[in-house]
């Protein structure tokens, strides 16, 4: 069991080194980010004393992933496996527990630790035995699989948009529209295996153009369900709604290009920083997009010779 945890530490070190980050600085940065994030939740969110442990338990819940647990069960004796899972869950819960304790939520801190140990008894069931229909099957794969993975979130965003219309709260409506684009942007957060780029008989420019076209078309299609009623009930604010769609579309273009900016490896720290800066301050995207585009084209040319 000790070796297992050492191994996890080595894996973390290696992944930080691969990203070009000194492991000690990386872990230090992670700790500072955790404290900053926790402080932000307690400052900005109502009922943070309940939301915060819910976030912790949700993260710990992911340790129950089916395949990972099947592997662990196959290599460790049952008693060791159970001990390992409890210890692993507690290790993840303790930082949250300390923060809750520090904030004076003693009972909730204790409950978080206890519940996290109990969560070690639970493994996710794996995938359901049915296929979710996707309206995007003509041009796989990002929207096809992304829609299936996030359709509940998309429904939630639609619900938020309709609540905004009901309560005449345009800001909430615009926020839901942006959330929808951010969900779509997430479809492009994964790095393609080389095969899925190589297999295209297209030049790098055409390949990227097609990817951007599909992303813009499908994201616009999804946004219509929010934007049409929003415009209908806020006719005077059409300009603002269209501007939000434009910013969302810029996000999409950036997201698609960013996938290939350092292909076939993950984005560098500086590229990730540029991407996040652009998402936070949209005008920055006007500088980021051309820069990313030229880098992505040169990366893609290696695998797409025409």
């Amino acid at each position: 069991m000790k070796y297992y945890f050492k191994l996890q530490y080595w894996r973390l070190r290696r992944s930080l080194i691969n990203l070009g980050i000194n492991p000690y600085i990386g872990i230090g940065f992670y700790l500072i980010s955790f404290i900053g994030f926790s402080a932000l939740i307690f400052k900005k969110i109502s009922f943070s004393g309940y939301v915060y442990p819910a976030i912790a338990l949700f993260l710990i819940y992911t340790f129950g992933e089916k395949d990972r647990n099947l592997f662990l069960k196959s290599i460790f004796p049952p008693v060791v496996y159970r001990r390992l899972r409890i210890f692993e869950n507690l290790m993840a819960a303790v930082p949250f527990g300390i923060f809750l304790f520090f904030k004076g939520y003693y009972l909730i801190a204790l409950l978080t630790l206890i519940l996290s140990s109990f969560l070690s008894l639970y493994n996710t069931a794996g995938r359901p035995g049915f296929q979710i229909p996707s309206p995007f099957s003509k041009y796989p794969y990002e929207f096809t699989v992304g829609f299936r993975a996030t359709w509940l979130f998309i429904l939630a965003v639609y619900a938020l948009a309709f609540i905004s219309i009901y309560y005449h709260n345009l800001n909430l409506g615009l926020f839901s529209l942006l959330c929808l684009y951010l969900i779509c942007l997430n479809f492009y957060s994964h790095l393609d295996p080389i095969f899925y780029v190589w297999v295209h008989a297209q030049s790098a420019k055409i390949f990227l153009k097609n990817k951007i076209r599909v992303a813009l078309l499908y994201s616009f299609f999804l946004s219509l369900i929010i934007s049409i009623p929003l415009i209908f009930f806020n006719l005077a604010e059409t300009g603002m709604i269209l501007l939000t769609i434009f910013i969302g579309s810029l996000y999409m273009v950036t997201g698609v290009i960013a996938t290939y900016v350092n292909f076939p490896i993950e984005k560098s720290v500086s590229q990730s920083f540029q991407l996040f800066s652009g998402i936070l301050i949209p005008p920055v995207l006007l500088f980021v997009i051309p820069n990313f585009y030229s880098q992505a084209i040169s990366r893609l040319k290696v695998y797409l010779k025409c």
Partner: protein
Amino acid sequence: MLTVKNLSKSYENHRILKGVNLSICKGEVHGVVGENGAGKTTLFKCISGLEYYEGEVAYDGGILKNETGYLPTAPHFFSNMTGYEYLQLLCNARSVRVKDITEFNLFGLPLDQYAETYSTGMQKKLAITGLLLQKNEVFILDEPFNGVDISSNMIIKEILMKLKSLDKTIIMSSHDFSSLQDVCDFLHYLKDGLIKISLPRGSFDQIENEMKKEGPAVHIIDSIYTG
């Protein structure tokens, strides 16, 4: 004709391929055998253009990459993508228009199910179907028989024979020597980064004998059990 001249490949300081030479004519099936880690997959990736390499890969039929169907040892499938959508993706990638993909489901796969949930053999069959739908001229198949059932093994052999008769170029690897014997016109033994032996059909036994000589050190098992 597909010609590989003096192909070399290194990963960091480890030299995997040290100047491989091969010539494959249209309508020929070439097999590559070798131990695990001999460099078969690396060789195939280099020929396909999936990896950088030193040396030359020449093809007189157009842009090789755009006419090549590459079957990896373990094809990757995205989660939440059905078999049908995988085939659609491969057709879109090569701008091949197929009216009804399900008509070409030659292995009878459940195309409406997520490809990720298929068994190893089913995934391989799906990947092969995709390569056929793309109407490729060159087929680079890494372990096509791996994980498939006996009847599918026979179907794959039939497919290879059909492709051969259609003048397609095929290069493949397999650890199933008898399957290679059944379908290959030439067999190449890759060892220490070089093609050590290349033989035409009828004399494959020499390669089998050579490989048997270098069999695993079974005596180590005795040491494990006797402590």
